[in-house]
C-alpha cells in the first residue's frame, strides 16, 4: 500500500476513536459530569482531528473543527456554560464533524449549507461574539481575545521595554524517556546555539555515586541563557520532539514586567490562572505563550501563518501521547486474528482426536500420557478462550452510534426523546457487533417512530413529555441479551390484527393470543405505520430485524403492555466461531443440534404419538399437541419413518416461538463445536446450517432447526406459512 494512504487510513481510524470519545464526553457532560478532564478530553478529540486533518489538507474539516474547537475552548476556560442548549448544538456539531470525516474518507460531498449553519450556531455561542476576525488572526493559538486586548492597553509599556533581541532563561532537564526514544540532549543544545548566543551551565548535582547509577537514567540538567532575535515560539520549536520527555522552563527577560503590568487587570489574572490550571492537565506550558501572544499582538507584525500550526501539532501529540499512556493497545489486522482463531480451532479438534486415539489404544486413564493429555486439553481450552477474547469487544461501539440516531429521529418526528443506555461494557464477538448495528438501528427507529407517542398524546396520557428509550446489554447464560424498550403506547393490538387481516396475513376470524398478535409485526411486509415515513422505511422493519438476528444465531421476542410501552429482547451467541451443540445420531449419521434451540428432550411413549392426516404425526406433551418431525426422513437419510418408541424426541423452539419435536435415533452427548462453513468449499445445503469436525476427525453436520421445521410443513397453516417464509 502507498505509505501515505496507510497513514491516511490510520488517521481516519483514529478519527473514529476521537469522534467516539467526543460524543461520549459530550453525553457525559450533558448527564451532569462536571469534571474538567471530561471537557479537556472532548476538546482534545476535536483538536486531534483538526491537527490530523490539517496534515492531509482536508480544509472543510479543519475549518469546521476549528470553529467547534474555539467554542469548546470557551467551555474549557469557563467562559461558556455547558447548558443543555449549548450541548445540543455541540452534539449536532459532533454529528457534522463525523459526517465531514466520513466525507473526507470516502471523498464524497458534504451538505455545506448544514455545516455552515451549524458553524454559525457555534459562533453564536461565543461569549465574545463578533470577534471572529481577531480569532482568525491568532488562529490556532486559541488564546482568548481578552488577553490580546489587554496587550493593546499596555501598548505604550511595551514599546518602551521591548528590544528586538530577547533573552531567554532556559532550564532543561531531560527525563530517562528522552534518551530511551533515541533523542540526545547535546543535539538540542546545538540547535539552540544556532538561534543566537547561548550560555550553557551543566548542573550535575543530581548525579549519584557511580555504584548507584542507572545506566539508562537521566541525571544532568542544563541552565541556559539564550540571547536571540527569534521569538519564544522558535525557541520552543527546538524542543518540539523532546517536550514530553523533559522538564522545561523557558522564561523571557522583560516579559515578566509586561505580564505584571497586565496583571493589574484582575480579569486577566483570573484567566491566566485558568489557563495555567489547564496546562497542568495538559502537561504543556502555555502560560508563557499567553504573554508571548500579548507581546506579538502588540509590538510586532501579526503572527505569521507558518508559526501557527506548531502549537496545534504539539497539543495533538500531547493528547495522543496521553491516550496511549492510558491504555496501551496495538492495531492488528482482523484477518490475522481470524487466522489465529481458526488455528486454535484446529488445535482443539486435533487435541480431542489425540485423546480419543489414546483411549482407543487402551492406555489407562492414570497413565502419564493420559494425564499429560488432560493438561494439554486444559491449555488448549484456555488458549481458545483467550483467543476468543481478542475478538470480543464491548457493545459500546454500537451503542455509541445510537444517541445520534435518536437525536436525528427525534428531530424529524418532533418528539422529545431521552436515550438511556446500560451495560455498554458487555463484551461480544466483533462479528456479532458489526452485524448488530443495522437491526439495532431499525429497532430504535421503530421505538421512536412507532413506539413513542407524540408529546401532546403523552401529556394527555399523564406521562412526561420526554419519551424514554432504553438500550441495555447483559450476559445471560453464555449469551448476550440486548433489550430495546420504550415507554410509549405499546403495541396497538386491535390495529395490528386488523392490518394483518387486511394484508391477508391471517384469516379474519383467527383467534390469536396477545403474544401471537404481538409477533405478527415480525411478518414480512408488515408495517404498522399508516403512512410510510422515511424514517422507518417501507415496511421492511421488523421482519428484516428478525432475519438478521436469526442469521446471527439469535432470537428476538417482544413484550408489550398497552399504555406502558414495548420491550424487544434479543438473545445472541457471544461468538459465531463456536457453538454449544447436542450430538445426536440419525440413521447412522452424526448430527449436531444447536443447544439453544432445544427446550427439552423426551422419550416418546406409544400413547402420546398420534397420526394426523396421511403421514404427519403429532406428539402430546403435557396435553399440548406438537408436530413430530422425523429428522432422518426430512434430510432423506432414510425413506421409511422411524419408530418413535425406539427414538428420542427433542422439543425445539423455532424462531417464530412455535414448538416442534424432532425425532432422532439417539443422543450421544453435549459438546462445544467449532463451526466450519460448508459454503467455503461447497455450497449451502438445505436443512444444514454448517459443519463441524468431531473428535474422531470426521465431519458432522449442524442441523438448521428452523429450516427443517419449516420444510417439514406439508400443508402449512396460515400463520406458520408466513413464519416458514421468514425462516
Amino acid at each position: 500500500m502507498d505509505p501515505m494512504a496507510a497513514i491516511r487510513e490510520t488517521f481516519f481510524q483514529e478519527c473514529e476513536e476521537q469522534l467516539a470519545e467526543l460524543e461520549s464526553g459530550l453525553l457525559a457532560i450533558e448527564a451532569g459530569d462536571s469534571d474538567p478532564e471530561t471537557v479537556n478530553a472532548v476538546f482534545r478529540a476535536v483538536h486531534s482531528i483538526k491537527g490530523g486533518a490539517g496534515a492531509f489538507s482536508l480544509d472543510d474539516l479543519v475549518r469546521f473543527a476549528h470553529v467547534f474547537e474555539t467554542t469548546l475552548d470557551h467551555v474549557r476556560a469557563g467562559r461558556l456554560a455547558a447548558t443543555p442548549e449549548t450541548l445540543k448544538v455541540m452534539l449536532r456539531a459532533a454529528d457534522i464533524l463525523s459526517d465531514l470525516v466520513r466525507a473526507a474518507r470516502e471523498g464524497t460531498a458534504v451538505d455545506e449549507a448544514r455545516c455552515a449553519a451549524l458553524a454559525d450556531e457555534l459562533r453564536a455561542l461565543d461569549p465574545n461574539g463578533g470577534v471572529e476576525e481577531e480569532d482568525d488572526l491568532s488562529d490556532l493559538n486559541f488564546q482568548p481575545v481578552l488577553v490580546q486586548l489587554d496587550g493593546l492597553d499596555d501598548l505604550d509599556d511595551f514599546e518602551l521595554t521591548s528590544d528586538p533581541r530577547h533573552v531567554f532563561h532556559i532550564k532543561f532537564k531531560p527525563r530517562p524517556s528522552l534518551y530511551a526514544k533515541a533523542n540526545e540532549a547535546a543535539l538540542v543544545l546545538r540547535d539552540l546555539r544556532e538561534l543566537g548566543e547561548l550560555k550553557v551551565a551543566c548542573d550535575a548535582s543530581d548525579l549519584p555515586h557511580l555504584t548507584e547509577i542507572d545506566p539508562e537514567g537521566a541525571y544532568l540538567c542544563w541552565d541556559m541563557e539564550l540571547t536571540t532575535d527569534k521569538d519564544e515560539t522558535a525557541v520552543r520549536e527546538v524542543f518540539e520532539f523532546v517536550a514530553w520527555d523533559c522538564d522545561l522552563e523557558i522564561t523571557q527577560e522583560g516579559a515578566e514586567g509586561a505580564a505584571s503590568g497586565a496583571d493589574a487587570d484582575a480579569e486577566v489574572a483570573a484567566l491566566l490562572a485558568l489557563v495555567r490550571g489547564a496546562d497542568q492537565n495538559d502537561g504543556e506550558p502555555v502560560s508563557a505563550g499567553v504573554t508571548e501572544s500579548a507581546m506579538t499582538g502588540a509590538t510586532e507584525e501579526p503572527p505569521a501563518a507558518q508559526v501557527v500550526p506548531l502549537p496545534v501539532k504539539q497539543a495533538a501529540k500531547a493528547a495522543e501521547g496521553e491516550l496511549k499512556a492510558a491504555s496501551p493497545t496495538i492495531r492488528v489486522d482482523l484477518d490475522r486474528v481470524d487466522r489465529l482463531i481458526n488455528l486454535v480451532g484446529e488445535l482443539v479438534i486435533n487435541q480431542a482426536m489425540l485423546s480419543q486415539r489414546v483411549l482407543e489404544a487402551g492406555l489407562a486413564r492414570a497413565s502419564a500420557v493420559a494425564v499429560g493429555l488432560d493438561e494439554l486439553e486444559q491449555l488448549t481450552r484456555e488458549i481458545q478462550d483467550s483467543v476468543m477474547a481478542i475478538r470480543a469487544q464491548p457493545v459500546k461501539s454500537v451503542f455509541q452510534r445510537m444517541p445520534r440516531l435518536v437525536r436525528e429521529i427525534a428531530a424529524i418526528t418532533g418528539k422529545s426523546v431521552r436515550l438511556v443506555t446500560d451495560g455498554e461494557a458487555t463484551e461480544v464477538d466483533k462479528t456479532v457487533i458489526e452485524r448488530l448495528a443495522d437491526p439495532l438501528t431499525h429497532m430504535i427507529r421503530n421505538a421512536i417512530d412507532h413506539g413513542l407517542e407524540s408529546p401532546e398524546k403523552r401529556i394527555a396520557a399523564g406521562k412526561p413529555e420526554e419519551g424514554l428509550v432504553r438500550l441495555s446489554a447483559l450476559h445471560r447464560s453464555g449469551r448476550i441479551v440486548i433489550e430495546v424498550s420504550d415507554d410509549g403506547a405499546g403495541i396497538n393490538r386491535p390495529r395490528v390484527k386488523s392490518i394483518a387481516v387486511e394484508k391477508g396475513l391471517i384469516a379474519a376470524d383467527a383467534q390469536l393470543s396477545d403474544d401471537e398478535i404481538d409477533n405478527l409485526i415480525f411478518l414480512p411486509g408488515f408495517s404498522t405505520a399508516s403512512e410510510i415515513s422515511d424514517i422507518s422505511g417501507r415496511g421492511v422493519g421488523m421482519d428484516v430485524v428478525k432475519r438478521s438476528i436469526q442469521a446471527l444465531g439469535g432470537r428476538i421476542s417482544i413484550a408489550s403492555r398497552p399504555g406502558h410501552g414495548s420491550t424487544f429482547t434479543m438473545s445472541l451467541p457471544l461468538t459465531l466461531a463456536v457453538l454449544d451443540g447436542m450430538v445426536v445420531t440419525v440413521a447412522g449419521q452424526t448430527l449436531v443440534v444447536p443447544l439453544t434451540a432445544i427446550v427439552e428432550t423426551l422419550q416418546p411413549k406409544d400413547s402420546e404419538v398420534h397420526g394426523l392426516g396421511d403421514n404427519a404425526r403429532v406428539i402430546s406433551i403435557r396435553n399440548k399437541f406438537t408436530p413430530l418431525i422425523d429428522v432422518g426422513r426430512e434430510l432423506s437419510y432414510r425413506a421409511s419413518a422411524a419408530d418413535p418408541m425406539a427414538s428420542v424426541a427433542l422439543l425445539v423452539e423455532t424462531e417464530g416461538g412455535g414448538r416442534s419435536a424432532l425425532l432422532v435415533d439417539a443422543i450421544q452427548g453435549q459438546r462445544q463445536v467449532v463451526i466450519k462453513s460448508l459454503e467455503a468449499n461447497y455450497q449451502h445445503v438445505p436443512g444444514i446450517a454448517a459443519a463441524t469436525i468431531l473428535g474422531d476427525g470426521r465431519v458432522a453436520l449442524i442441523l438448521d432447526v428452523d429450516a427443517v421445521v419449516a420444510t417439514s410443513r406439508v400443508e402449512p397453516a396460515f400463520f406458520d406459512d408466513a413464519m416458514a417464509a421468514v425462516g
Partner: protein
Amino acid sequence: MSGRELMAFRIGAQEFCVDIMAVREIRGFTPATPLPQSPSYVRGVINLRGAVLPIIDLAARLGFGTSETSARHVIMVVQVGQQAIGLLVDAVSDILTVSGDAVQPTPDVASEMAKSFVRGVLAIDGRMISLITLDNVLPALESEAA
C-alpha cells in the same frame, strides 16, 4: 515452447488428465459424511486438516455410474476458483509433460459428458487421455435452491 504438465488418472477403463497446477494434493480414500438432498455424485464432505472438503465421485459426475469405493481409490484435491474440491478417482497414473500443440480438439461425439467436461484429447503411447475441465464439477446452484 515449454511443456505443459498434466496429472493423468484413471476412472474405469478410461484415462483423463487435468492441469497439474490445479492439483493440490492426493490422498487415500476416507469415508465421507453424506450431505442430505445432494446429487448422487456428491459423496459428502471430509475433514481436510480442519477444512470441510466436498468429495465428488468423478465417475458418477461423468456419467459412468457410482463408484464402489475401496481402499485403493484416491482423492485428488483440486483447486477450482476459490474452492478446494476432492475428486474421487480410481487411481492416479502419471504426470505428463506435453507441448501445447499435442492436445487435439475433442472428437465430435454425442456424449453430453464429452461436451461439458472434455476440453481436448491427447495421444500418449497409443493411449487416449482426455483433458478435462473442472469448472462444472460442483452442482449448479440453481438445482439447490431451497
